[in-house]
């Protein structure tokens, strides 16, 4: 069986009495780029956070790399995972946040080295060398000893990408990575993401950058009010949307 990197089957999630995700079915193939688009409040960020188990899935099944997220299945029952198991299962996916969330008390290099050394227990000098390569790759090779707040938003986001990559994830999740950036800084982050996609990384991107979605993604998923309204290749969903709600959304954004 050609197993998907992410497979969602009827994923549901509520906060209190509000149901945010009302049964999401989705497949993300290995090495593909999926863009989640939709109006705010549509549940796309929540779904992304479910993939990494930053939010607990209430019902339905969500598989990442063929492993059930947040639960273990035994004798026809789902057992909630312990925190440590969950932490380990998160190692499959790297995540990049809208507001970067770099550790402000650490230098750029310390940010990148932190998890490989303290979570994976790898030797520091080996990881530092890799971190330097990653910094070069995102175009910030000379900024290793700066503190995050000395950098522009675009630079911080590129560091955040490098930090996630340092864990050698199989999958990268991007939560509106350019939404908090000044317009002139968006390009540099998208460029890094494009090069990552070209290198074959599996990516799920929540974004409002329809240009990026059209150019880079293999699959565009339009979500609204907690359901997937329409999905498919970008030319279809963005070029000739079949669903009324997609059309309405695109006409507002474009």
């Amino acid at each position, binding site marked *: 069986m050609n197993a998907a990197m992410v497979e969602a089957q009827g994923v549901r999630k509520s906060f209190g009495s509000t149901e945010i995700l009302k049964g999401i079915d989705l497949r993300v193939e290995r090495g593909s780029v999926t863009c989640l688009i939709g109006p705010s409040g549509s549940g796309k960020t929540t779904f992304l956070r479910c993939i*990494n188990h930053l939010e607990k899935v209430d019902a339905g099944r969500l598989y990442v790399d063929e492993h059930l997220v947040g639960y273990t299945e035994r004798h026809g029952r789902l057992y909630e995972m312990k925190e440590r198991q969950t*932490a380990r299962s*998160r190692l499959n996916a790297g995540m990049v946040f809208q507001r970067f969330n770099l550790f*402000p008390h650490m230098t750029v290099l310390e940010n990148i080295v*932190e*998890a490989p050394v*303290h*979570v994976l227990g790898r030797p520091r000098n080996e990881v530092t060398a890799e971190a330097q390569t990653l910094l070069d790759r995102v175009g910030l090779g000379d900024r290793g000893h700066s503190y995050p707040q000395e950098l522009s938003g*675009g630079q911080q986001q590129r560091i955040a990408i490098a930090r996630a990559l340092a*864990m050698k994830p199989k999958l990268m999740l991007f939560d509106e990575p350019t939404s908090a950036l000044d317009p002139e800084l968006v390009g540099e982050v998208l460029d890094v993401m494009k090069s990552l996609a070209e290198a074959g990384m599996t990516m799920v991107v929540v974004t409002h950058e329809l240009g990026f979605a059209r150019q880079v993604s293999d699959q565009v998923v339009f979500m609204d009010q907690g359901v997937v309204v329409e999905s498919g290749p970008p030319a279809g969903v963005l070029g000739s949307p079949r669903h009324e709600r997609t059309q309405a959304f695109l006409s507002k954004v474009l």
Partner: protein
Amino acid sequence: MQQHSIPDTRKQAPPASEDSIPVVRLRHPVRLAIAAVLILLALSAAWDVAVNQRYHWDVVISYLFAPQIIAGAGLTILLTVVSMSVGIALGTLLAVMRLSANPILSTISRSYIWFFRGTPLLVQLIFWYNIAALYPVIAFGLPFGGPSLILGSANVLISPLGAALLGLSLNEAAYMAEIIRGGIGSVDKGQYDAARALGMDGGKLMRRVILPQAMRVVLPPTGNQVISMLKGTALVSVLAISDLLYSAQIIYANNYQTIPLLIVASLWYLLMTTILSFFQTKLERRYGRGFDVAPRRTRQQKAQPKTRTA
């Protein structure tokens, strides 16, 4: 005029390369005049104090380095250092417990804080001092009168100094717990997401990411706590422990030089708090790293070329 009175440090050093227009800095003649008057007043007050015979400066000087005073100061430092260290360690544990999702842990912490903040420190100190009256023997054993391992007499195990340390530490822990909880609460929630997404579990997340950032907020009130602890140790005089203030009191009970000896004690307290404030500033700078950007940015070229990756 008013809006110019806030000094704008960013504009103080115009780039030398540009054609510079001479800048006349705003002057503050009234400020200068007031400062001069105040300095004069302070000097005259100091002079009055210095020449006032009734202060007995000769007595102050003769007792400043008296062995009892020095020993008392040493004991005050010991009490402060030990109680503060235990208080901070236990307080951190209590703060994390209180924020824990585990209801058992958070209830234990909540009750502890409720009890130790809610009862007077003086009562707690006397309680520990008199613990032998309630529990003459200290032992580990099974509940409801089962077999037990006797450790010894409470009077022997908990000396007056031990009682003082117990009382001060356990009380301090309750206050520190609340301060540290506030510090933890001040850390951006995104930091938890980022740390978890990198595979950190609760313990690592706290130790490596949250607590170091909480330090910035925790330090100033902790500085307050250390200083009030330093002076609060004077309470232990009720347990007949000769700390700095108690040592001074013993001396003036004999020679009736009350004011000079209180001045001696105060000078030592001032010296100690000054040293503590110095270390507080250093620590605040250490944990402020990465938050106050200004010092570094000035060293970089002002126009960093925006490197675009292909």
